[in-house]
């Protein structure tokens, strides 16, 4: 999982699998929990830089378009 776009795509896949019954609710719940932590850690990083008033590039959030 390199960036946030990959994370979003993965979450969409998990959602579809959960609906089709390929994945158990417990497993999906664990994955959602980890994804939430990843998003929150990126958010905390953003808040930290905003409070310090600097604008570094957060690799996880800045996605380069793949051709």
């Amino acid at each position, binding site marked *: 999982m390199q960036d*946030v776009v990959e994370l979003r795509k993965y979450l969409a896949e998990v*959602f579809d699998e959960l609906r089709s019954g390929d994945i158990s*609710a417990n497993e*999906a719940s664990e994955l959602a929990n980890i994804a*939430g932590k990843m998003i929150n850690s990126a958010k905390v990083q953003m808040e930290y830089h*905003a409070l310090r008033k600097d604008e570094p590039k957060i690799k996880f959030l800045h996605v380069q378009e793949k051709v």
Partner: protein
Amino acid sequence: MSVVGRHEHLYKIIDGEEHKLCYLCKQFVVVANCTLGKVGLDGRRRYANCKPCISEKRKIYRQSPRHNEVKRAWEAANRDKVRAGNRIASTKYIHSEKGKAIRAKYNAAHTEEKREDNVRRSREKVKNISEAYARQMLSDGSPLKGSQFPQEIVDARRELMKLRRELKGDQYARRRRTT
């Protein structure tokens, strides 16, 4: 201003005031009541016809089909300028006394309606997990505003909320089955 040269016959001093001949009403009118014309080669400002005549002429032109055609063609070719102009005009109107008064009158007359509308919109936002709702959730307890979060993280958060909602529904279904 004294006028010398080939336009001299258009100007006349009457009662110490400079007047100009209006080509439309054929009367001498005080220069101050004439519209400003082009600046001539000699650097002097020419005065065009009198203001009421020009106003009438423009009014007639604005009612003509040609005016509508020209206006529509220009608007189609300059959409950005039209939008920018509309934005400026609407902002000006919103902040004007008239705009404020009309808005206050409308709000007073539609309080209940507006409240219901706000509640409905808010419910829809939550139900559809809109982008605004995801941004609101991200900014909750954060020093950042919702608009400061990049689109990618908002999309990921929306997907996560969707998944969590599905899981919650699943949990409820399981609970219902067991009880």
